[in-house]
């Protein structure tokens, strides 16, 4: 029964994605509808996760598909912090289609049903999976902000006559918000990886592709932080690096099969 909550969540997220498309073409009402779509979809997905948690034995998002479900929720939650402001609506154009695609993928992988019992302890899963997913959600948002930066920067460079028509956050704001988001996310990922590695060593397990890819992702985002804080990077270069980092997040979350907790 709880699985039925997937459909309203998908519907409202889909409505929001279409709404943001409309907002990009003609700012105004479509954007407001889209924001409500995000809110209602988030509520439906929150209820779905609550139902999963209530029925599951421990932490029910240990599998690849179910963790994708949780990841979508974290991304949308992070977006909701800013997405309600008119100036940040267009960020939804990046975030919401991604949320829809990942939610459908999670559904196809059986991740929106009742969570299966895991051989791992709940505390370990919360610390490892929870922290890594929260960090990835932050990186996704930072990449969205960077994408918006690149787009707005191109508009400012080409000086179109409609430059003042759309409500888009200022370049400096996008730049600093992306930095702040990454600055919060990198420690979370560091901690999540550390917990995972500690477990790996204690069980004397070997590294798999997901571990390697996650460590590479961590290196890239640490480099982003280092180059920005110490190397004086900013603006377009930093935005492109964030987009590269996001590709790695996609690889880790989606492209590499989830035998990690098998």
């Amino acid at each position, binding site marked *: 029964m709880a699985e039925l909550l997937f459909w309203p969540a998908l519907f409202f997220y889909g409505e929001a994605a279409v709404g943001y498309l409309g907002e990009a073409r003609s700012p105004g009402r479509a954007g407001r509808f889209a924001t409500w779509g995000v809110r209602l979809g988030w509520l439906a997905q929150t209820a779905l996760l609550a139902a999963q948690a209530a029925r599951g034995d421990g932490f029910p998002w240990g599998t690849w598909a179910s963790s994708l479900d949780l990841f979508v929720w974290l991304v949308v939650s992070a977006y909701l912090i800013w997405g309600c402001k008119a100036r940040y609506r267009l960020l939804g154009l990046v975030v919401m289609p991604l949320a829809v695609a990942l939610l459908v993928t999670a559904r196809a992988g059986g991740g929106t049903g009742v969570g299966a019992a895991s051989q791992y302890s709940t505390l370990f899963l919360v610390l490892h999976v929870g922290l890594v997913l929260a960090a990835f959600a932050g990186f996704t948002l930072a990449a969205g902000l960077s994408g918006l930066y690149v787009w*707005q920067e191109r508009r400012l460079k080409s000086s179109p*006559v409609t430059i*003042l*028509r759309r409500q888009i*956050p200022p370049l*400096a704001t996008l730049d600093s918000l992306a930095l702040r988001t990454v600055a919060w996310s990198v420690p979370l990922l560091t901690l999540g990886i550390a917990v995972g590695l500690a477990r790996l060593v204690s069980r004397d397990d070997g590294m798999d592709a997901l571990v390697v890819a996650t460590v590479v992702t961590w290196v890239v985002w640490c480099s982003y932080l280092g180059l920005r804080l110490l190397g004086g990077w*900013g*603006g377009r270069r930093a935005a492109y690096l964030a987009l590269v980092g996001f590709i790695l997040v996609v690889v880790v979350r989606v492209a590499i099969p989830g035998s990690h907790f098998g």
Partner: protein
Amino acid sequence: MIRLVLVGTSHHHAPVELRERVALEREAARELAAQLAEGGREVVCLSTCNRTELYIAADDAETAERDAVAALAALEPEVEPALYRLQDRAAVLHLFRVAAGLDSLVPGEGEILGQVRVAHELGTTGVFLDRVFRQALHAGRKVRAQTAIGESPASVSSAAAALAEQVFGSLDGCSILLLGAGKMSEQASRNLRSRGASIALVANSKTPREEIETALATVDVVIASTNAPGLVLDAEAVARASQGRRGRQLLLVDLAVPRDLDPAIRGLDGCYLYDIDDLEQIVAETLSGRRREAERAESLVAAEAEKFHEWHASLDVVPAIASLRAKAEEIRMAELRKADSLLGRLDDSQRKAVESVTSQIVNKLLHLPTVRMKQAAAAADGVTYAEAVRHLFGLGEDER
């Protein structure tokens, strides 16, 4: 019945060389209003660079209009063919549109609202004109609050400031390098300073090159408006300065013709260059956006004007309603006095209860007729209803 008369001229009807001859300073506008107000009329003179208008509230509209035309013709006889004359509803709607900036050269410009307020303060007003102008100011504020008509920049200098906000967000702490100190760059820098930016350096032809390049490494906005025949700042100089900027954005606004800033700067990372053509095109586009918003504003203004007409129409029935209520109260009190011998046996609380009940009966009986009379007044039947009520209840017969 009090009437509203408007006589005036504006940029729609008269060129600047004619308008300037009937434009009045504040004191002169106040004196003219006071002069026309002799004989118990209410008068407001609204005089700006785009219009001079006289608003007169009087019982005799024809005489008021004649006097207003004569007063303006006395300032400049040639203005008479360029005068428009509006009365009552049309005059009210015109004032509301003016206050909302819908009749301005640049739709939605905000300065007019302050000018209408000042004209109101300087005028010789009574209940009627006071109400008209207060509601016009309310309509103007409502339009600015509920539409985006005044949000987009309407001039090159404000467009430059809006672009700076697109790049930097808040301009608090932003610094400006002014190359040349022409009128346009002064306006642009004033606009930026009003939003929190500060001037780091004003450079002219005598300023050492090194000083300009040093400033270039630290400032956020460059505004160029010199009379130099060639480029004042080339891309190489900006690229050199950018090395020390650690990725910080630099907005460059070139208001000069011929241009002061190398167009190749546009290709540099973190540099955003706008010349006078770019800015003028942006302004033209935002003005068309203002015109779109003006359609929404028109309906808001029309609704506010309608509210005023309802109030004005209700004035027809107010005396009749007041007389009716006074008569009812008089009857109630007389009947209570007649019953005084019986009521005298009651204690204070019982007596108060009787007073309250009789008062409520009167109020409830008169509530519906009062509402209906006001509704009839709004539908232009107010006078007929008022006469009928006077006749049916014998209002005013005692005086006769």
